[in-house]
């Protein structure tokens, strides 16, 4: 299945501006299913990691207060065209997703 993570990177000199959007419900655990009335279990990304050529350039720890379909952006230096940026998340239910993109 295709990854549910999208990444856009802009290279400005050796600085990479990274924007990433991922599909995830980010359930708080306090919402009720409107049809059944049952509480929807807490389900959220816990750790999100960005690695450039294998080196961690950003690690994000998330609570349920991160919006559904999370968006993050940040910048790192020392980037160059041809680098491989990997994004990976794991959630509290043990699910994960990842994507790789080549800079340039």
């Amino acid at each position: 299945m295709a990854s549910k993570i999208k990444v856009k990177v802009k290279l400005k000199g050796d600085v990479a501006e990274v924007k990433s959007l991922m599909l995830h419900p980010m359930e708080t655990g306090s919402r009720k299913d409107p049809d059944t009335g049952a509480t929807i279990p807490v389900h959220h990304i816990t750790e999100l990691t960005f690695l450039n050529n294998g080196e961690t350039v950003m690690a994000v720890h998330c609570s349920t207060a991160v919006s559904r379909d999370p968006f993050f952006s940040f910048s790192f230096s020392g980037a160059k065209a041809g680098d491989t940026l990997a994004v990976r998340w794991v959630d509290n239910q043990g699910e994960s997703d990842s994507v790789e993109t080549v800079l340039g």
Partner: protein
Amino acid sequence: MQLSRRLFLQGSVALAALLAIPRALVAAAWPEKAFASKAAAEAMTALFGTDQATPSSAISLDAPEIAENGAVVPISVETTLENVQSVSIVVEKNPRPLAVSFEIPPGTLPNVACRIKMGQTSQVMAVVKTDSGLFSAAKEVKVTIGGCGG
């Protein structure tokens, strides 16, 4: 706003199975206790060992005055402080105040943005940890509830 047409299905390649990251590469473990804390001070103490942060004008916290939608509040933090190790966002009136924490390795710029949920009007605080201590900037974000989406 006019976005240019773009072809999808290009550029990024999914490698879900191939990409296994050793845990050691993740800067720190998920701070469960800090995220479970129900008060801002408690969360700060759990995360940093203290709830005292020095207000700093070197931190710029960008958040809307009135959130258009409490479920999606854009927040960005930028600072000129040096040797930043982490940037955390704390929403005082949220049931669990610690919303998100960015671990910043050397070489990564202290310039982050994300979208968060807010249950009600609250102070939003950016807490920046550097090698010389804890610094903060805060801003009130108003959250209005109700209506039909315009």
